[in-house]
Structures are given as structure tokens and as C-alpha cells.
């Protein structure tokens, strides 16, 4: 009798896996431990793919785990009568559960190629909006300035404070000064490693205004965690005004008033 209870106990323990597993994912969004707000054009494709795979795998997960529970529950030696079924397998079954997953996976692979190509392969024909150079442990930014070309005397240099216009394609030229870094914009679903010696293009289109984090997602040394930036998406007008203001500050030949200086230094 005790053995039977033990069996049930273990079976239920295994049942807890799918139950709590699903529960965790069900609760997650409500406690805000979930995909951060997406403000990009392409982000919705990525998110929908995420949900699609989540549902797909979720079904398989629940099915298999529940099956596992059921077998453990049913075929407990202390419970079930008679000897075990003497069988070495079933050819049909093997074929079935090879073909079906194969087809699904292949479909999945082909289905998402387009989304991938949009983000990484179909580069818009334009000159870089800004150059982002990763460095231990900061994001150094360079805007082309009035003449629109990088590497001229009127470039605008900034650190960690990236501003970009919304509702239009932006092309970022990503470089690294020293080691590997990864340029991660969670809210527009963009991530790209910065590799010393390479100029890697990154492009996207933001839909909403707002200020968000720039995260470094590739270990770059002891200060990796420090490597935080801020990206601000704003309307073209605001963006241009901001560029002008920053450029004026960069070219300052007279100190601003003490109070203003402090404020401006922020």
C-alpha cells in the first residue's frame, strides 16, 4: 500500500512539471517578466514568431510531459497487474513520429527565413545615420554632421546618448575599437556583435518616441555590466534640433554661466 502511494507521489511530482511550467509562462506577462515593449517596425514579426514557436513547443511540451506522467501513474509495478508488455517497438510509430516533427521543423525553418532576411540581409541603400563605436566600456557615437559624411571636421561626437529619428529607416555603422561587444536594443529587437576590424551595418525603423536602454550583450571585460547606453527615438524635427544643439555645445568657445554649465553637463 505504501509503495502504491509512493508511486502516485512520484507520478504527481512529474505532473507538476508541465503544470507549473505552463503556469510560469502564463503568469510571466502579468508580472511584467516578459518581452519588453516593442517600438520597431520589424519587431512584431520577431515577436509573432516567438509566440508561434512558444505555442508549438508548448503543445509538444504538455503532451509529452503529461504522457510521461500518465505512464508513471499507470504502470507502477506496485499497481499494475501481470508482467510488462513484451514489445520491441513499432515501425509505423517510428515513421509517424519521425515524419511529423521533420515536416514541422522544416516548415518552421523556411517560414522564418523572410523575417531574418529583413533584419540582416536587405540593407536599405543610404549613407549611415550614425556611427556607433563600441569601446571598453562605453558606446562612442559619431554623427556625420552637416556635410553628411563621416570622418570630416564637422562630425558630432557623443558618448552613450544615441538619438534617432522615428518613422524612417536608420542605418547604423557598427564598429569596435578594442574587443568584441554586442549592440543590443531590446525595445526594437536588434542585436549585433561589434567586431574589431569590421564595419557592420545595422538598420531598423522605430515607430514610437521614447528613451530606452542600449545593452552590451557580449562579454567585453571586467566592466561589461557598466556598458550602458541610452537611445532616444524622436520626431525628425526634434532630432534635427537636438543635433544642432549638441553641435553648438561641441563647438563652444565660451564657458556657459556656472549654473547653466552644471545643467548642461547633464
Amino acid at each position, binding site marked *: 500500500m505504501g509503495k502504491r502511494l509512493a508511486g502516485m507521489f512520484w507520478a504527481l511530482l512529474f505532473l507538476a512539471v508541465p503544470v507549473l511550467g505552463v503556469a510560469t509562462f502564463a503568469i510571466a506577462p502579468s508580472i511584467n517578466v516578459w518581452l519588453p515593449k516593442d517600438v520597431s517596425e520589424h519587431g512584431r514579426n520577431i515577436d509573432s514568431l516567438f509566440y508561434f514557436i512558444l505555442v508549438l513547443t508548448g503543445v509538444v511540451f504538455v503532451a509529452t510531459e503529461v504522457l510521461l506522467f500518465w505512464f508513471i501513474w499507470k504502470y507502477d509495478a506496485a499497481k499494475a497487474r501481470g508482467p510488462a508488455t513484451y514489445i520491441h517497438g513499432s515501425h509505423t510509430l517510428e515513421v509517424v513520429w519521425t515524419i511529423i516533427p521533420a515536416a514541422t521543423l522544416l516548415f518552421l525553418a523556411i517560414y522564418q527565413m523572410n523575417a531574418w532576411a529583413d533584419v540582416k540581409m536587405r540593407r536599405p541603400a543610404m549613407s549611415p545615420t550614425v556611427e556607433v*563605436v563600441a569601446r*571598453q*566600456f*562605453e558606446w*562612442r557615437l*559619431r554623427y556625420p554632421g552637416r556635410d553628411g559624411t563621416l*570622418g*570630416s*571636421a564637422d562630425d558630432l*561626437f557623443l*558618448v*552613450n*546618448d544615441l538619438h534617432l529619428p522615428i518613422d524612417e529607416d536608420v542605418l547604423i555603422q557598427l*564598429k569596435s*575599437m578594442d574587443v568584441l561587444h554586442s549592440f543590443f536594443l531590446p525595445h526594437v529587437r536588434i542585436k549585433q556583435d561589434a567586431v574589431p576590424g569590421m564595419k557592420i551595418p545595422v538598420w531598423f525603423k522605430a515607430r514610437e518616441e521614447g528613451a530606452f536602454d542600449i545593452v552590451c550583450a557580449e562579454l567585453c571585460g*571586467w*566592466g561589461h555590466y*557598466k*556598458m*550602458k*547606453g*541610452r537611445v532616444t527615438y524622436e520626431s525628425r524635427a526634434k532630432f534635427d534640433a537636438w543635433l544642432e544643439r549638441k553641435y553648438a*555645445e*561641441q*563647438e*563652444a*568657445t*565660451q*564657458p556657459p554661466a*556656472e549654473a547653466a*554649465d*552644471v545643467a548642461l*553637463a*547633464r
Partner: protein
Amino acid sequence: MHGTPMHTQRTLMTMFGKPSCLLVAMALVGLAGCGTTPPASFRANFVEATKQRLTPEQEQQVATILLAMFGTPDDPVALPETGLDEAKLKLCAGPVRSDIVGRKNGLYREHCAHCHGITGDGMGPTAAFLNPYPRDYRPGVFKFKSTERSDKPTHADLVRILHNGIAGTSMPSFALLSEVQVDALVEYVKYLSMRGETELALVRQFFELDDDAQGRLPETREFLVDETLTPIAERWKAAADARIAVPEMPADVDLATSIAKGRELFYGDKANCVKCHGPTALGDGQANDYDDWNKAIVEWSKEVAGDKDSDWVSKAGRVLAGDALRPRTIPPRNLRHGIYRGGRRPLDLYYRIHAGINGAPMPAAKGTVAPEDIWHIVNYIRSLPYEFDGELGVDRPMVAKDRF
């Protein structure tokens, strides 16, 4: 023995036999786990104390006085004479934690301590691996400021450093911290700086004492506050009104001619920039000099090496090994990188040339170079990263066109 997997009776026995030993094991691990660490403490300025040949008792007196005047890393004290805001200090001091209203405390230890050290001696655990080394606040010398060479930096100067970071060094930008936090951190840096300066002053006072080895400093308010602390604090307060007056950039000359003039001055022997920054401006001129912090160590180790008094030398040796970073030379800036540690505004460059860089070999041009000429040099310096120069072939990847 070939029976069922469960050996019931043995199981029962061991079941009740085992817990004791398990509990013991757990207890042991528990004890190890609760190993408490002592609270953070300020570290004495051993280099100066040993240089001045203080006895352990004298070192202890200094520590005691400093405890009285400045408190501990967890509980800082700001005497009214310092003009520091104790509330701001409390925000930065102590271990990293959030208070009742969820405000982040212990900012200094979260953001600064692992490089600049709890004491502000620029010797945190990470420091030894950085190039250049983190600033040692204790001498109260800061490089990048809007005031004359001999003056302290203004509050705004330090805020600007925290905001922009220092390009080309490991000092990152803290622009994303809140206004209040940056403000508090600057206050705390001043606090550590004043504390360090006071410590230096006290340690050096022992030599002025009349002659006996066991001499103790007077612990009167007159000596500690009026004679020692107040002069130091006054200089910090004076900084705000000591900013360099910058004349307007000469409007009559166009940029090209200004740059040409600047170039002349750069190579000419009045401004003489070429001597250190080199004929190619790659910082390859006089490159084997030290800044004040490293020079102090270099000079002292010479002195130690030359001395014969054995027990003092042996202590000095330990101090040099444990409390001083391996001295590094300070190369002049490579002006083709387009990296300007003190800021890239023409204004910043004007300050650097006018007053020189305190603590660094960079001398002041004021007095010898006329203000409008300084402006010409500024314009030339700013043009350097973009001036193509055939001789630079080897160094191409480093000019600003490719990297900055």
C-alpha cells in the same frame, strides 16, 4: 543478496543512523557560510607615512584624528568648515543598498570604489590593470578643469567629467545617472579629496614637530581645524570664482590662416608643443616622463634604494610592493586620434593650453603665449586628425577617419 533492490531492515537502521552525521555536515557548511566580513575601512597613506618615517603610534594617531574629523566609509562626517553636504555624502557612503523609499544608497561603492578604492587612493581591486591608472584623490590634484593650474576644479568641472567620462581612459560616462546622484558623487569625491589632503598635511606635520621620535600632534581644534582643515577647504570653496577668463576667438582671421598660424606656433619654439607631442603630433616626442603621482613613487624608490637604514628600508619595500602601483610613464597625447581626454570643445583645449595640466608634465602657455595665439593653436590641434599627412602612412589606421 540477490533479492529486491530495497534492503528494508538496513535502510531503517541507516535511516535513523544517518541524520546525526548529516546535521553535523550541514552545520559545518552553515558556519562556513555565515563567515562575516569586517566593515569597509579607510586605508592609511602608507607611502607618505613611511616617507616621513612615522612610528606605528604616530600612524595610529593620524588614523584616530581622521576618524574624528571625517568618520568612516560607512558613516562619513563633514565638519561645517568643509562646506560639504553630509546628506549627499550619506547617499554615496556605505554598502550598496536601497533605503525605505527605494532610493539607491552606497553609490560610490556601486560605481567607483572598485577602481578608485574605498579610500579614494586610486587603488581599488581593478586599478592595477587599468592604463592609465585611476585618479588618486588624496593629493587633491585634478587634471581637467576650467580653473588656473594651481586652483581646485569647480563643481561643474567634476560633474562634466562624470557626465562625459574621460575619452581614451577606463573612466566611463555616468551621464545616465540621475542629477541628484551625480551631484552626490561629486560631493563625495571632494570629501575623499579633502580627507586625503588633511591626512597628507597631518603626516607631514610630524617632521615640523620638535625633535623627539615619539612626538604626537596637538589634538586641539586650533591645530586640526583652523590650521589644517580650513585652509584646504577654503581652496575648494575658492574654485568657483577662480575660473580662467577666456577671450573671444579672434574673429578677423579665417580658419585656414588661423590653422596655419597655429601650426607655426606648434613647431615654433615659443609654444614648443613639438618637443613633447612630436614632429608628427603622434605623441612621440618626450615620452619617458611621469605624472606627479607616478613620479612621487619613482623618486621615493630611488631614495629608498640609496638608503642604508635597514628596518626603515624593509618597511618602505613592503609599502612600495603593497601600497604603490608599478610606476607608468605618461606619454604625451597623440593629437591625430581625435581623442581629447579633457573634452573636445575648443574651450576645453584652450583651458589645457592656457593653464597646462596640473599633475602632468604639460606646462602652462599663459604669459608666454598670447591668448589669440592660443586660439590659433587650438584650431590647429582640432584640424590635426583630419589633416592628411604622407609621413603618417604607418599610422593610418589610427587617424580619426578610421577610428577615434
